[in-house]
């Protein structure tokens, strides 16, 4: 039964519903997307409350950090007064929320810049890096996984497996520094760090950030492809004399794609928010550093801004992945109504 379903869904043109039905399904899909976007509001609200709570439960505040080791009591009080830190936590949160509803995210306590400016100045650098790293990991991970799965236990498979585990196990800071030492210092081909324009600046950070994702995607592709290749419909296709390449890429890979897309989506989310170490090593002006710096300096308007952007991006990537499922497996479309 299951095999039959899979087989039916394999060639997309044959499973496409009639034109009228397609419009209906597209409409329900749109409605689904809209509902998910509306759902984001309570999610973001919840996230900000949790973040605010955590920041206020930990001792110390932004004023003490700005004044450092030499902070006479009167000056601490004056600074707290100016920053509004003397109000009870719920009042501070209320004031902040009241502004956010009017799309005013306030100013950074530390730098005095508008939070939107702080975030928007760094967001492009992070998205570029995460996007390129994801593309790189797909471009290498998927073919490598397929190659391994179609030749299980061959030399290629063993090499790919070892490389993948190596990629997962390698600490990012170590890998980044080794890459810099080899390509920037010893060979002098690429700049060591920074994002000062030019494609040369992207290569090392993208490889560093993408390595673990390549490994994860390779492993997942191999596992699901192995499972799919053992399905009845693949054997049927093979026995009908379908060209092996067409069989692998059109029939098997398409059906194996759902778990792979899930991993890619998760990896992309992780690359967006987890790039702090890569950003630090390569002096990359991304949002990960901003997150760490603002948490360390208890700059709560900036922390809230960064966390909301992370939550939003995560939710959008999840939504995108879910919608992609519908295109990969038309049976799922009917469930969105």
């Amino acid at each position, binding site marked *: 039964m299951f095999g039959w379903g899979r087989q039916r869904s394999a060639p997309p043109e044959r499973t496409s519903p009639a034109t009228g039905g397609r419009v209906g399904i597209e409409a329900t899909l749109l409605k689904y997307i809209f509902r998910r976007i509306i759902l984001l509001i309570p999610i973001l609200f919840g996230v900000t409350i949790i973040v605010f709570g955590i920041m206020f439960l*930990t*001792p*110390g*505040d932004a004023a*003490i*950090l*700005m*004044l*450092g*080791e*030499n*902070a*006479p*009591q*009167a*000056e*601490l009080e*004056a*600074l707290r*007064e*100016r*920053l509004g830190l003397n109000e009870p936590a719920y009042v501070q949160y209320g004031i902040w929320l009241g502004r956010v509803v009017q799309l005013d995210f306030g*100013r950074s306590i*530390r*730098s*005095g*810049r508008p939070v939107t*400016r*702080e975030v928007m*100045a*760094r967001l492009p650098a992070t998205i570029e890096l995460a996007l390129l790293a994801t593309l790189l990991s797909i471009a290498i991970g998927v073919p490598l996984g397929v190659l391994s799965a179609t030749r299980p236990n061959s030399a290629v498979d063993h090499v790919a497996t070892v490389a993948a585990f190596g990629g997962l196990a390698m600490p990012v800071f170590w890998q980044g*520094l080794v890459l*810099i*030492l080899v390509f*920037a*210092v010893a060979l*002098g081909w690429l*700049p*060591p*760090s*920074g*994002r*000062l324009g030019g494609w040369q600046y992207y290569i090392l950070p993208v490889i560093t950030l993408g390595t673990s994702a390549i490994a994860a995607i390779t492993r997942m592709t191999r596992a699901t492809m192995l499972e799919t290749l053992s399905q009845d419909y693949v054997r049927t296709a093979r026995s009908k004399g379908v060209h092996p390449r067409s069989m692998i890429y059109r029939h098997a890979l398409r059906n194996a794609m759902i778990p792979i897309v899930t991993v890619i989506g998760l990896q992309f989310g992780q690359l967006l928010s987890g790039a702090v170490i890569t950003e*630090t*090593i*390569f*002096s990359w*002006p*991304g949002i990960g*550093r*901003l997150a760490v710096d603002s948490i*360390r*300096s*208890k700059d709560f308007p900036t922390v809230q801004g960064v966390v909301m952007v992370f939550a939003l991006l995560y939710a959008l990537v999840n939504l995108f992945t879910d919608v992609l499922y519908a295109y990969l497996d038309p049976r799922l479309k009917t469930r969105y109504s």
Partner: protein
Amino acid sequence: MRRVLLLIAVAAFALGGAHAFTLTVAATSDAVSLSPHDTNDQPSARVMRQIYDTLIVQNEELELEPGLAESWTQIDDLTWEFAIRSGVVFHNGDPLTAADVVFTLNSLRDPAVAAPGAFILGFVDTVEAVDELTVRVTTGTPFAPILSHLAHTATSILSEQVVTDAGEDYGTEVVVGTGPFKFVEWEIASQIILERNDDWWGGDVLPERVIFRPITEGTVRAIELEAGAVDIAFELNTSPRDAMRAIENPNLIVTQQPTLSTAYVGFNFQKEPFDDVRVRQAINHAVDVEPMIDAILEGFGSVATSPISDMVFGAHTDLEPYDYDPERARQLLAEAGYPDGFSTSLWTNDNPIRIQIAEIMQAQLGEVGIDVDVQVLEWSTYLADTAAGAHDMFILGWVTVTGDADYGLYALFHSSNFGSAGNRTFWSNPRVDELLDLGRTEADPDLRVEYYLEVQEIIAEEAPWVFLYLTLEVNGTQPNVSGFVPHPAGHHRLYNVSKN
């Protein structure tokens, strides 16, 4: 001598004809703000030093020279007058007047502004303009170190008009000073670009452009220098191994510069057994600082024998350190009633060098029977909890930025500064309080030195601290860079740096 060499270099340069060059500097972190009233952190001060001027300039030898104040006179114990240099213009073309100076200093100490550097002017009573180019400052009590305080980057002179017009955008979008370089552009977390101010009152400015690139990892700053991507790299000593490699590299010039910064372990006098001088002295005898400097700092430091660096005015350079003598330590502990030692804790913030220091100290104190639990705290918690007196022992550092003993001793040892203001040991000694007050108000420099020497002798004897080490700052430049003279306070001036 260095000055003469510099002059020769500059003259040779002028004869050879100016050539335009950009100086790229690897900084330790991005600036927080370029408004001296919004922040008091070192990476920001390093950029501000190039953009702004102060009334008084403290040169690399820590001598005080005229800055925007051409001259000054002390009218009486409490009153000073500063003659503002005429013909100075801000980067936007407006002339500098006494009103700008009055605005700047009053804004810095205004509780509503709540500037992190306000304490620098804590001694000031009033600031007013006498005429277009004369400013009068009065102090509540006589304040001897006034001139070195007016050389601090926090007191950089701003344009009243520009600051008022820019409002909250001042310091990030709008930055205007009178200094050797003009602010051009700030790509957040990526680079700050400055360009030469051809109208600078101080003379020729050699670099056409200066670019500050924030590179937080010491290892990467060293690599950028090795790869030739930056001309100057600051503070390689934060990653001692990389600093060593840079020093061994024949293609780089690496300088080691004594600083005004000192590291110490403080005891909490509000807790037993640290209220007993024998226990504090025992710990001083049980700690050996040399191996810490060798193993952790790769030698980039020297053993401290006083709470302030040797370069500071009023520093006691003849104090004998406590010799490393575990036997004597055990004996002192036994006399204090702890023949088998005791259990305690040592706090540090999450700074890798301090954590390693704490671990070595834990092992050394274990030798004399003191069981130390090392606790690593996040910085804001650390500051708050040590200010509240929740600790037993703690590791901290201090930079005597003004180069005057008052700055390095008053906040840390006067009993009026318990807690967050700086005295986190809660040590109180009436004679020390008296001497510190005298040192602050006495005009005669020789008498001041006498007071400070006595204070340091009492501190060494009473041992509220374990003196750890004085930090060496390691900076590197490319071989074609000349004229870079590091400043002991860390904000190095770049207008005189040239590049072939």
